[in-house]
C-alpha cells in the first residue's frame, strides 16, 4: 500500500488538448509515454473535474466525454481484468453529472496528430464545491507554471537555479525550461485567459468592476505620457481591495483583449 505513487497532474482539458509532443523513450520501454504539455508538464496520470457531456455504453467498452469548460477529456474503459471496475463506475455516470476522474493518459498518433484518451482508475460524483476546489487549485498550479515560464524567458541568464531561488519548486523550474524548449511559440496569454474565464457569475461581476477601475486608473494616471506605472497602479488597486494577483490577471486579460498594451516594461496605456 505504501509504495511510491506515480505523480498525478491536475490539469485543464485545454492543456492536454494543446499538447503536441510525446517524450522520447527507449524502444524496449513498454510503458505509456509521457506527454509533454505546452506548460512543460510531463503527464502520464491526470486528475480532473468536469461535467459529463457524452456517454456511450457498450458491453465491451464505455466511452464518456467530460468537459471542464476549457476542453474535453475523452475517457474509455474496457470490460477486461484491469478495466472492469472503472467501466462499472463510468456506466453509472449520467449526462450533466459533475465528476472527478483520475486516470492514465493513452496516446495515439495519426497523420502526425496526437489523440488522447484517459483510462480512468477512479471516477466519482462530486458536488459544486468540490468542482470549485479543483478548479481553484488547478488554476493556481497552472498560473505558477506560467509565471515560471515567463521568468525563465525574461532573462538570458535564467537557469533552473535562479527560478528556484525566486521561489519556484525544482519541478516547476524544470518544466519551465522544458516548455520553452518544446513550445517556444505557445500563446501563454491566451491559455491563461482561457483557464481564468472559468469563474462563477459573482466573481465575474466583481471582475467587471475591477476591470473598469483598472482601465480608468490607467487612462487618468499616464502622468508623463510614457504610460501608467505598474507600481502606482498596484498601490491604487490594493487600496481598492484588488489584490496583486487579481491585478496581474486583469492586466493579462485586458492585454489579450486588446484594451491596453504594455508600452515598455511595467508601463501601460489604454488603446
Amino acid at each position: 500500500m505504501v509504495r511510491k505513487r506515480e505523480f498525478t497532474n491536475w490539469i485543464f482539458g485545454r492543456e492536454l488538448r494543446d499538447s503536441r509532443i510525446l517524450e522520447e523513450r527507449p524502444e524496449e520501454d513498454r510503458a505509456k509515454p509521457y506527454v509533454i504539455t505546452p506548460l512543460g508538464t510531463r503527464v502520464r496520470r491526470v486528475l480532473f473535474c468536469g461535467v459529463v457531456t457524452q456517454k456511450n455504453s457498450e458491453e465491451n467498452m464505455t466511452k464518456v466525454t467530460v468537459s471542464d469548460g476549457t476542453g474535453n477529456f475523452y475517457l474509455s474503459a474496457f470490460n477486461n481484468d484491469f478495466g472492469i471496475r472503472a467501466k462499472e463506475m463510468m456506466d453509472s455516470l449520467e449526462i450533466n453529472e459533475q465528476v472527478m476522474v483520475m486516470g492514465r493518459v493513452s496516446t495515439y498518433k495519426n497523420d502526425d496528430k496526437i489523440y488522447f484518451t484517459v483510462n480512468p482508475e477512479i471516477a466519482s460524483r462530486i458536488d459544486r464545491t468540490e468542482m470549485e476546489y479543483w478548479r481553484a487549485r488547478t488554476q493556481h498550479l497552472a498560473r505558477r507554471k506560467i509565471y515560471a515560464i515567463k521568468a525563465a524567458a525574461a532573462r538570458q541568464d535564467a537557469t533552473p537555479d535562479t527560478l528556484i531561488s525566486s521561489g519556484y519548486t525544482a519541478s516547476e523550474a524544470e518544466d519551465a525550461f522544458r516548455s520553452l524548449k518544446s513550445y517556444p511559440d505557445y500563446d501563454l496569454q491566451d491559455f491563461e485567459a482561457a483557464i481564468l474565464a472559468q469563474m462563477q457569475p459573482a466573481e465575474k461581476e466583481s471582475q467587471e468592476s475591477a476591470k473598469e477601475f483598472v482601465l480608468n486608473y490607467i487612462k487618468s494616471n499616464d502622468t508623463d505620457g510614457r504610460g501608467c506605472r505598474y507600481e502606482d497602479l498596484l498601490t491604487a488597486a490594493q487600496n481598492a481591495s484588488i489584490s496583486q494577483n487579481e491585478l496581474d490577471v486583469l492586466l493579462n486579460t485586458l492585454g489579450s483583449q486588446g484594451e491596453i498594451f504594455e508600452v515598455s516594461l511595467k508601463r501601460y496605456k489604454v488603446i
Partner: protein
Amino acid sequence: MSETVQRVKISDLHAGMQNVDIVGSVVSLQKKELKNDRGESVYYYGILGDETGTISFTAWMFPSTVRSGDTIEIKRASVKEYKGVNRLYVDSNSEVIMRPGETVQVKRSYSQIKIKDISMTQPYVTLEGRISNVKQKELERDGKKTQMYYADLDDDTGRIRVSSFDRPLKEDGFVRIEGAKVSEYNGRFRITIGSRTSVAEIKPSFKVGERVYDIREISSPIGGITVSGFVVSMGEKSGLVIRCSACNQRLDDIHCPDHPEAPISYDIFAYFNIDDGTGNIQCTGGKNVFLKELGFTDEQFTPANKAITRRSVFSGLQEKILGKAIVANGDVSRNQAGLSLRLSSFSHVDEEFVKKLMTHMEADFQ
C-alpha cells in the same frame, strides 16, 4: 586555486573559501547510502563545532573510527552555500585526522527557526511558540526525583512536542526557547529543554492559526497541520477493527487468545491517499475521526449492533471518503515508507475552505 592553508575558526568561514584547515568537535555524524542508476555510494554528513560556533558538513569519505564528540582536524576543506546556509565540504582532496588528546568546547549556535524548518541537521535551535496541553510527571533519575513537563509548542507553521526537565511550562503562555535540543522519536520531532536551555515569556510576533500546507511543502514530521485533496485510494484493510476489551489487542477472530472470555469491542482504522495536485500523502485515522462520518454515535457502535459488519464499515468508508475532496488536520510522522499524516479530524471541502485556500494561494503571487 591557492595552495596556502588557512587555519580558521568556524565563525570566520564564508562561502567560496577553499583549502580550509579546521579543528573542531564532531557534534553529530550520520551516514547516508545513495542508490541510483550508477550504483550505490555512501556519504557522511553532520555538524562540526568549535568555540566560535557550528557548521554542517558533507563528506564523501570519512574515517570510520570517528564518533560524535571526537575532536578532529580537517585539512583542505571548502565552504559553499547550500540552501542559503554555509556548509563545509570534505572531498577527495581533503584529509581528516583524529585529534584524540584534544578537547574543543563547542559554542552552541542557536539559530532561530520556525517549527516547519526543524531538522536533525540543527541539533540546537531557538523557537518561539505557544505552550499548550501541559502534563506533569515525576521521574526518578539516578535516585533523584525530577519533575518532567510535557507540552505542545505551536507557532504559525506547525506544532512540536516539548519535554522539559524541572522547568515548569505555563499553559497558553508564549515563550522563546533558546538552545532547545532537537530529537526524533517514534517518527516525530520533539525538543527538550535542559539545563543549558533558556526559556523566557514573550509577546508573540505571530498568530497561531490553521496551518494550511500544499502536500509538496511537507518535508518533515511536524504536527498540527492542515492539508486538502481528493482521496484517490483507500487501503483494502481499512474498516472495522475488533479488539479485546481486556487487553485492547487487535483481534483477527472474535476471541482473544489470552482472554477468550472477555467481550470484544469495535474500533475503526482507515488509511488512504490524498492528492492535492502537488503530491500525495498517506493519511491514517481511527474511530474518533470516522465514526460521525459513518453516522454512528459511540453507543451505537458496539458488537450488539448487528447492522455493523466488516463489509458495511468498509463500504461505508468507501462511499463517504473515496473520490471526495477533504480537508485533513493532523500530525505528520515518518516511517520506513516516508511521511504520513495521522488525522486528528477531517471534514469535507466547503465554500469557506475554498475561499481560505484561494487567499492562501494568492499569497504566492504577492
